């Protein structure tokens, strides 16, 4: 009760409601001052990667890409992180990295707001902050390395399925949950792409939802085919959905006849590509994501960029990259996996 009292005392009078807050303190942003694109890349930079979870295979590949890049730059890279993806568990790590005097932090945020105060603290101590995969609050980082734009993902998914079904027939989307922001953004772009004349012969059925639950996704795939015997293809832009649908198809009479594509990881999909259930699917390469983010972090820490729109930096094998609106850098179109290249990837 004592804190309740203390809170009330400090509050004085008058209620504080949502939105009544005046200026929210934007600490430390732009601590680097102005950018000098010609500044040399500093050697021996200490850059730490902070994934959502340390033992998640996707994150592990991302960290590997990041530490590889830091190695190329003669820096000191390391990956540290929690073993659970709870909102708060990254904060202790950020504090640690601040105390250790790292030059830059590259983080995939578990919760955009829970990590924000700690990241602002880091920036106020001249530590560069780059987010990747999932962003933190915009004023709590300098650059966000996004896997691909929603538009690119949505449109490329339509192209994949259209090629596989020969440009005509019924298709359906097996999504995650009805309110997943990224899924809905992709689906909107898929629908927009399908309006183009070259896709006129494709009919899109109402979207079904597997809730990113293996069992439910499996059943939804099954129900789709029972209800629509003339279905030609399924697009599942979620790693859970595509794997479950592939498992159903591979043991059904529709195997090879009904096409399946979407976003999946090579390790999950390998057996279904090899047994002919799936021809091609896509995903960005998390290794390249980590690689690009590490280069962005090094460029920030060397003073070559500050995170402002229009600034350019060199990203090793990925070439020169330009910072877009809100400090966003986009990795590029997703990688397409098929029988020819799937064995080159392990994640």
């Amino acid at each position: 009760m004592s804190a309740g009292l203390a809170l009330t005392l400090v509050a004085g009078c008058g209620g504080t409601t949502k939105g009544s807050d005046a200026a929210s303190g934007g600490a430390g942003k732009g601590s680097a001052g102005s950018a000098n694109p010609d500044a040399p890349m500093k050697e021996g930079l200490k850059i730490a990667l902070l994934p959502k979870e340390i033992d998640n295979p996707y994150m592990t590949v991302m960290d590997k890409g990041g530490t590889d890049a830091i190695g190329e730059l003669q820096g000191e890279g390391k990956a540290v992180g929690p073993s659970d993806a709870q909102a708060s568990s990254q904060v202790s790590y950020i504090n640690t990295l601040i105390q250790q005097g790292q030059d830059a932090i590259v983080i995939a945020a578990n919760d955009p707001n829970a990590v924000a105060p700690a990241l602002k603290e880091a920036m106020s101590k001249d530590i560069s902050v780059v987010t990747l995969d999932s962003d933190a609050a915009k004023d709590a980082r300098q650059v966000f390395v996004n896997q691909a734009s929603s538009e690119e993902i949505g449109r490329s998914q339509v192209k994949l399925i259209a090629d596989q079904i020969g440009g005509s027939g019924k298709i359906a989307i097996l999504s995650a949950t009805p309110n997943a922001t990224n899924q809905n953004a992709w689906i909107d772009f898929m629908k927009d792409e399908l309006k183009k004349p070259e896709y006129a012969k494709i009919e899109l059925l109402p979207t079904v939802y597997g809730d990113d639950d293996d069992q439910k996704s499996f059943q939804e795939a099954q129900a789709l085919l029972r209800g629509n015997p003339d279905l030609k293809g399924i697009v599942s832009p979620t790693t859970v959905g595509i794997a479950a649908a592939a498992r159903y198809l591979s043991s059904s009479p529709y195997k090879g006849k009904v096409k399946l594509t979407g976003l999946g990881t090579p390790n999950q999909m390998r057996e279904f590509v090899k047994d002919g259930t799936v021809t091609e699917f896509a995903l960005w390469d998390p290794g390249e994501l980590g690689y690009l983010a590490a280069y962005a972090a090094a460029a920030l820490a060397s003073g070559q960029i500050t995170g402002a729109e229009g600034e350019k930096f060199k990203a090793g094998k990925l070439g020169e990259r330009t910072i877009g609106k809100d400090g966003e850098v986009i990795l590029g179109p997703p990688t397409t996996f098929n029988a020819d290249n799937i064995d080159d990837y392990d994640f």
Partner: protein
Amino acid sequence: MGRVLRWESVLGLVCVAVFVFGATTTGGFTEQGNLSFLLLDYSEVALLAFALVPIILTGEIDLSVASVLGFCSALTGALWEAGLSFETIVPLVLLAGVVLGSVNAVLVVRFGLPSLAVTIGTLGLYRGLAYVVLGDRAVTGFPENYRPLATDAMGFLPYATVVVVVVGLLVALLVHATPAGRSLYAAGLGEGTARFSGIRVGRLKVALYLLSGALAALASLIYTLRYNSARADNANGMELVAVAAVLLGGVSIFGGRGTVAGVALALLAMAGLRNVLFLNDVSNEIQNVITGLLLIASVLVPVVVKPRRTNDVPLEPSPVDGERRPGADPGRRLRRDHQGV
């Protein structure tokens, strides 16, 4: 009494060792910002541990504390989103904590159910309700005029830690300096005997579960403001850290033995150790191994060492408080006779 003091001395030495080790070997450990983070990071755990001390002293347990925290955090978020003022939310959330505590109290005291089973049940129930209230969303944007209370510090001493210390002192006062405190030791040493000596064990336990709910709600306010994020999964699993701190602090899981000071020292040692391990890049898995071993050692060492030293003394531990020593009741550790009140 002597033995209890001795365990606290051991914990005091552990604290000194951890802080000396940190200061001498680990860069950045003694910086003001780090010390204040070290304290702040354990503030919620400490509040939950202080809520647990009196309950465990009576021989009961409350494993639902972190779920109460999670529910109250989700509730804070939902109410804030609905446009209520933060000044209105604070008492409502504290009340919600008390209500959740009262559910535990009714089940344990009125129906005489084992508190372990009851609070494992409400651990799941309250966490589930937190998801019902807020789903898997996160609410943010809590007022900037209150947030510093949970994030800022005077020098190295965070405001939240001041709250924790005040709560700790109040609990210590309750446990060590009031008739109610003596009663809860007596209840822990032998509930039947305590009841026959005229102690209203049931009423006492009800009060402790309500207090536990209130403290967990207070912890939820600090947690939510500190991270500026209300979520249903906040503080998931924190009950185990809090229980570990209480046991490491020398409180007997069977009740009747232990001090608040011991628990405070255990909290400080655990917070310091965690911070030092973090700064030395010790991975989470190894940290868990170390904390686990420490906990096992803390319950093992007294058991292994004691019988040899006190061969002539019957198995009864000497009561911390001499006046109310209940009669010998050899079965009391195994038998819990809840008969309602």
